[in-house]
């Protein structure tokens, strides 16, 4: 019964019918039984009452004439009725008069009470009926007769009645069950069939199946009809859906075919584009080589002429040479810019992004810009906040900054002012260059970043620019995830701002530029020795740099540790060292530099506010200057310790397939006091190297036959030539891999796209001086 909700509908119906029938039958049977009991009792009472009356009537005379014997004779007639257990006649005043006992072993009982006003009373007690009746004779009560009858007959009768009722009950129940079965089948069978149909439909997804009609007109028939109608609709929908699906599939196939065709076409186009790109790359590569090589010769020879190395020039000749120099320098710049732009457009420019601090990259740019600014008495102010870290390609960052600063210098009148400031703006660092120049008209501001756009300005400024600097800067910044913008008021000045992503302050790696990639010192004098300025205060560094920059090449370090690293890498000709620095004192740095073999021979000049000359000299300082220092004193001291370029007869092997470049290099190096030998192929170079002692190799990369990389590989395989200094000079645009090889295997890389002479002299001089110092150190 607990799980009646899990029964099948037919079981439930049967159960319901059975319960209903059983309940009805039980009620009916109970009613019958009650009625039977009642009527049986009434009959028994009537029977006994009648007997009592007869007995009473027949014993009146016995009572009147005091004849108990006669009464007993009358009573003995009761024996005919076996149910009568006992009878007693009482006199009027309640005395027992005569009695009868069925079992002859009776006792006389007290006269039962008959309620006043009644002639008879009866009671059922202990399975028998007791009945007392007054004996009335001629309207007068003469006595009482009391009869007790057992109920065996009645009970027997009742039992047989109950049996009959039970049989009737069971039979009725069976019949009800039978009938309910018949009816239940008529109800549950269609339901079961419907359920089965539903299951099949839902399992097979076959909506063409229909539920069978029940043949009757009841709700089940309605249900079946409704279900069939629903199936009809679903089938209709399904057919429509399938049609739609088929159509869709057809359309998809059609589209797929079209797409495939388009793809094929695209692939062809792609091939074409790829080919075009390859061609463009090849064009760019050859452009950079073919254009620069002759221009290199022009620039170089005009330099030599201007320096009057081959002989004295008169004023007119000098002026003409100067025009050639300016024109060719401009042309070289233009070519470089165009190639840069093309590379950016072609997506061939590689960015090597790293985290570095803005204030570390700035001095290298400033050292180039400052001479230009000083020429026009323009003051450059930097307002750099603390530690602005950017994530960018350091070289490209400097290029952008250089472009903006050189622009600012160009367009700012004499005695103007340029501000550099830097602030953090969300996830970006914004660097602004503000000048007090001529400003840019509002209508020009929109196009200022387009290629070959120049705003009207001073004639000389227009001449100097290529019109590509801002366009390149914009692309460089945007490729690194930043933006460049301009605010300007015509006549008052301009403010260029570019943003770059903030770098993580955690990765504050010391700034080590590649050992051979040196800052380009445009406009620097030739053969300038390298000075490392070590000071934690930027102002002090800048001051020293300004004093020294006309005569010397400058590298700066702001801490002792950085100084040691840079000194090892760059082997400067001298070091100026501040003693009071936060992380390690100047003296510690001094000791560290002295202990390191690579740097032990470099003269170190202490420039400090503290006067501890004894200590300084004791630790090996070459000289000791006390702040504030005069420019003349500083220069005098440096000159004392930095030897002029050596005139040693060191031979340098020049390898280039272009005779003009060879001649230019020969001239340049010989004028600096070096012996040279020239060969025009890699194979020849290897021959010379195997037969002759050579101090260094200056190598071109792009050569017919064996190219520069192959030469380097061969040289480095030779055990005796492992340490041979190799300088590379090329017009080739280098890939990252090539650059890595060159960084590893060579001492310096010069690019023909710039003014490489001064650098060349410095680098060669440094290598030779280092070797000389090492030799002398080894001798002592």
């Amino acid at each position: 019964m607990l799980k009646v909700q899990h029964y099948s509908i037919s079981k439930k119906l049967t159960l319901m019918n059975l319960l209903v029938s059983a309940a009805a039958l039980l009620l009916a049977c109970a009613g019958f039984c009650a009625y039977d009991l009642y009527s049986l009792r009434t009959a028994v009472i009537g029977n006994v009452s009648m007997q009592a009356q007869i007995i009473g009537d027949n014993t009146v005379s016995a009572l009147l004439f005091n004849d108990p014997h006669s009464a007993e004779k009358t009573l003995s007639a009761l024996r005919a009725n076996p149910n009568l257990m006992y009878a007693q006649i009482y006199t009027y005043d309640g005395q027992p008069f005569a009695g009868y006992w069925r079992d002859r072993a009776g006792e006389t009982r007290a006269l039962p009470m008959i309620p006043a006003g009644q002639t008879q009373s009866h009671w059922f007690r202990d399975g028998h009926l007791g009945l007392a009746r007054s004996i009335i004779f001629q309207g007068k009560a003469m006595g009482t007769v009391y009869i007790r009858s057992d109920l065996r007959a009645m009970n027997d009768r009742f039992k047989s009645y109950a049996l009959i009722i039970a049989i009737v009950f069971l039979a009725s129940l069976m019949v009800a069950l039978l009938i309910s079965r018949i009816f239940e089948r008529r109800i549950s069978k269609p339901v079961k069939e419907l359920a089965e149909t539903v299951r099949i439909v839902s399992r097979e997804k076959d909506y063409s199946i229909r539920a069978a009609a029940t043949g009757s007109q009841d709700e089940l028939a309605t249900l079946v009809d409704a279900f069939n109608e629903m199936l009809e609709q679903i089938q209709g929908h399904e057919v429509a859906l399938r049609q739609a699906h088929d159509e869709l599939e057809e359309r998809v196939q059609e589209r797929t075919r079209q797409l495939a065709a388009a793809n094929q076409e695209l692939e062809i186009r792609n091939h074409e584009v790829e080919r075009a790109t390859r061609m463009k790359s090849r064009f760019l590569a050859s452009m950079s080589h073919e254009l620069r090589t002759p221009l290199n010769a022009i620039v170089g020879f005009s330099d030599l002429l201007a320096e009057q190395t081959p002989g004295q020039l008169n004023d007119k000749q000098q002026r003409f040479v100067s025009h050639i120099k300016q024109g060719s320098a401009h042309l070289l710049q233009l070519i470089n810019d165009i190639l840069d732009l093309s590379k950016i457009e072609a997506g061939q420019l590689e960015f090597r992004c790293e985290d570095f601090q803005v204030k570390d990259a700035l001095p290298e740019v400033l050292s180039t810009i400052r001479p230009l600014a000083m020429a026009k008495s323009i003051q450059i102010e930097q307002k750099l906040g603390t530690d602005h870290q950017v994530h960018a390609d350091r070289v490209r960052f400097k290029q952008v900054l250089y472009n903006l600063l050189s622009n600012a210098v160009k367009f700012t009148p004499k005695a103007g002012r340029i501000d550099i400031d830097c602030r953090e703006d969300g996830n970006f660092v914004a660097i602004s260059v503000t000048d007090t120049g001529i400003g840019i008209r509002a209508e020009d501001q929109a196009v200022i970043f387009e290629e070959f756009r120049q705003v009207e300005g001073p004639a000389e400024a227009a001449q100097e620019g290529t019109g590509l600097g801002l366009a390149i800067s914009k692309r460089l910044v945007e490729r690194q995830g930043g933006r460049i913008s301009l605010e300007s008021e015509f006549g008052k000045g301009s403010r260029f701002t570019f943003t770059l992503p903030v770098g993580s302050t955690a990765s504050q790696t010391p700034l080590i530029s590649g050992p051979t990639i040196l800052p380009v010192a445009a406009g620097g004098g030739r053969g300038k020795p390298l000075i490392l300025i070590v000071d934690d205060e930027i102002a002090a560094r800048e001051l020293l740099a300004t004093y020294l920059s006309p005569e010397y090449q400058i590298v700066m370090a702001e801490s002792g540790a950085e100084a040691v690293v840079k000194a090892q890498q760059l082997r400067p000709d001298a070091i100026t060292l501040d003693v009071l620095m936060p992380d390690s004192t100047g003296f510690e740095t001094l000791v560290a530099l002295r202990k390191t073999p690579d740097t032990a021979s470099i003269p170190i000049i202490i420039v400090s506010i503290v006067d501890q000359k004894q200590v300084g000299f004791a630790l090996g300082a070459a000289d000791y200057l006390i702040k504030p220092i005069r420019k003349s004193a500083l220069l005098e001291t440096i000159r004392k310790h930095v030897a002029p370029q050596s005139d040693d007869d060191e031979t340098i092997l020049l390898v280039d397939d272009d005779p003009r470049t060879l001649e230019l290099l020969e001239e340049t190096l010989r004028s600096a006091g070096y012996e040279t030998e020239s060969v025009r192929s890699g194979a020849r170079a290897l021959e010379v190297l195997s037969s002759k002692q050579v101090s260094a190799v200056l190598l071109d990369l792009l050569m017919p036959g064996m190219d520069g990389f192959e030469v380097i590989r061969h040289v480095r395989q030779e055990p005796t030539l492992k340490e041979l200094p190799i300088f590379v000079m090329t017009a080739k645009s280098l890939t990252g891999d090539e650059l890595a090889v060159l960084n590893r295997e060579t001492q310096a890389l010069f690019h023909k796209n710039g003014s490489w002479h001064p650098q060349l002299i410095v680098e060669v001089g440094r290598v030779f001086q280092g070797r000389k110092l090492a030799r002398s150190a080894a001798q002592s």
Partner: protein
Amino acid sequence: MAVVMAWVLVGVPCLRAQSSKPTDYDVKAVYLFNFGRFVEWPANGTAAKNDSFAICVLGQDPFGPALDATLAGETIDGKSVVAKRISTPEESGDCRIVFMSSAEDARMNKIIAALNKEAVLTVSDIPQFSQHGGMIQFVLEGKKVRFEVNLTAVQHAGLTLSSELLKVATTVRRNSSGD
């Protein structure tokens, strides 16, 4: 009446008002009255025309006050029962029951013959009364008063006797005398 009934029905004369036991005649007085209840008289008889139901004592009255006391206030068939004392059978014209005193022993047959012509129930305690044509004769069974019935005499007189009465009679005689 209640008092009379009480001791009659108990069967043992026991008058609560009296200290002595009921005498035989006390019982016989009650019986006389009771006989009247079990007998039917012919509707056209002389006695039936009377307003009262007369129970007569012929000769010397042996009951004393007992009979009058017994019958006082009683009715049979709606007629009040009265006791009458007569000295000759000729006076029994409106009597229903005639009790013949034992003092009349000598002229019993003569009286019976005279009374049997009338629809009168004759009762007596004279021995051999029922054998000589008397209808009901008191007899003593031990100390208990019983009676004998001469049914033939009763039927001759046109009276109907209830079978109930016969049940309690010690002897019922049929055709035993009269001839």
